[in-house]
């Protein structure tokens, strides 16, 4: 009897620490933020002293040109970064999916950029982009070309290049893993039927990799909305608002403009955006699982 109660309590005992920490430090803060977003709130006040203003913060933001600009910068950044990274990453994976010596060394070197602190990545690129002492402009001048104003006029592009440098390996490694787990029989059959390498890629490899590629793409997209430190160190959002992504604007609204209520409302907009992406990913994996189950069931019936 006692043993049975003990066994029934086990899962809760295992879950309890995680549940407590997540409720206190994630779910409660999120609710607190939703509550705060309806209030006129500056950092000197506790939330009890603030005034309830309804949807005012959301409406102000909706008509705020600076917020719209930063939303559009965020979307442009995320979409460009993810699509370029997908193309280069998957392309490289297809190209390097060969049985060569030293592949593990290569992969190790490729993941280095991802492991280093974003702050340090920003620092390196800020140095390389520097108008006079930076590496790029020195190269350009040594071959007789004009230097480029990297972090001035072309700031968004420069930030995008840095992100591509850091995160393309992520997609490369996931795509390579997907390629190497493809069923050999399908590729063998295509080769025997005389498919050219291009046909193999387009009609066999890419379609078979698709589930992994879509999940990878969504994961990267969610992460692209989280980027902050690299841009903060490189440009601090400037010049003007040209690289001020939403995460950066939230932190500036909270610390510089001291409007916590508005920053909370902005965080909620960002959260809703990410919620949609996560829901899409969740729905996609569920559909995929259902499809696989159906195919498996059909295959069993045939036997």
């Amino acid at each position, binding site marked *: 009897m006692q043993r049975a109660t003990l066994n029934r309590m086990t899962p809760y005992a295992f879950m309890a620490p995680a549940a407590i920490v997540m409720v206190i430090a994630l779910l409660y803060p999120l609710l607190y933020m939703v509550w705060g977003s309806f209030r006129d709130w500056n950092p000197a006040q506790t939330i009890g002293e603030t005034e309830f203003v309804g949807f005012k913060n959301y409406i102000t933001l909706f008509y705020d040109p600076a917020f719209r600009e930063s939303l559009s910068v965020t979307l442009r950044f995320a979409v460009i970064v993810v699509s370029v990274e997908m193309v280069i990453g998957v392309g490289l994976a297809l190209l390097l999916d060969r049985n060569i010596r030293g592949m593990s060394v290569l992969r190790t070197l490729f993941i280095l950029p991802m492991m280093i602190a974003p*702050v340090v990545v920003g620092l*390196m690129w800020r140095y390389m982009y520097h108008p006079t*002492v930076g590496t790029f402009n020195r190269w350009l001048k040594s071959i007789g070309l004009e230097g480029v104003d990297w972090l001035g006029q072309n700031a968004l592009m420069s930030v995008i290049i840095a992100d591509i440098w850091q995160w393309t390996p992520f997609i490369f490694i996931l795509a390579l893993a997907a390629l190497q787990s493809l069923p050999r029989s399908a590729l063998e059959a295509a080769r025997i039927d005389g498919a050219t390498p291009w046909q193999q890629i387009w009609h066999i490899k890419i379609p078979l990799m698709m589930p992994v590629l879509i999940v990878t793409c969504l994961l990267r997209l969610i992460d692209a909305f989280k980027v902050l430190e690299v841009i903060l160190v490189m440009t601090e959002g400037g010049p003007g608002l040209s690289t001020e992504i939403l995460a950066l604007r939230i932190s500036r609204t909270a610390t510089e403009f001291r409007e916590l209520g508005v920053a909370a409302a902005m965080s909620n907009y960002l959260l809703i955006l990410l919620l949609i992406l996560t829901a899409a990913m969740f729905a996609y994996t569920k559909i995929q699982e259902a499809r696989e189950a159906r195919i498996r069931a059909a295959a069993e019936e045939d036997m």
Partner: protein
Amino acid sequence: MAKSDYDRQNPAFYALLAVLIFMSVGPIALMFINSFKLDVDIISGTSGLLFLPTIQNYETALCDVLPYELDHLDFCSLKFGGAFINSLIIALISTVLTLVIGCMAAYALVRFRFIGRDTASLTTLMVRMVPPAVLLVPVFGLWNNEFCIDKATLVGGFIRDVFGGRGDVCLAGTHSGIILIYIAMNLPFVIWILQSFIVQVPYSLEEAARVDGATPFQVFFKVVLPLIKPGLAAAAIFTFRIAWNEYLLASALSDRNTKTVPILIVNNMSEFNVEWGVIMATGMLLAIPPIIFTLLASRQIITGMTAGAVKG
């Protein structure tokens, strides 16, 4: 005819590989080289490798922990050593706690059917996407105003008397405050990764242990944990990396004494006159632990990265 294990490739292929390696490692190598140059050498731009290497930048960065006086420095303004120790404390403690709490939860979610399991699993999945920037406002408010011990109570008064400070004792500005939010931030990810490893542990092993009279906790610690070591290694590296590298929340929660290294670097970057040599040396010091982990455990990192997307 003996067949070689590896395919022969044409030279263009190797050229491409060389270019790729140069592109991915080049910037890091550049920073490494520059951290051994004096500012004069960096700015004058005398050709890349012809310079006298010096450890002066590292000495300047670590001036507060070096046992000897520096000749080139009148005043030690950069408290890098202290920040490094803060970073180390915060990253290590939060990694250990996240792993312990996370693998227990992952085990419960995989092996038991219980009321609330689906809710727990869905919540974990959903909060995984919350960016640190979104947590900034509520965490700042809560840690400063609500998660406090009133100074009038016994415990609060005791803490205040021992450690100083005037008002209530709050989580903000303490190591534990930063550690708590890092644990919460990393838990969903760790649970998610470890689930995919625990699923692979054969259930028959656990049943055998249970038949032999082991309690659920013994089964977990003596049978399951040893079998998912690779998963634990991967999760540990990812957690450590985030806790070690994070800037935004740490900057909102830390005070003068609990600053971490990323905060120090950002503060020095935004000053008017950037001392490139010193800042690169601090950057290098911050980058070294993750680089060492990568070189030692790249296989675990890659398994961890692919575990979620490819299998799940």
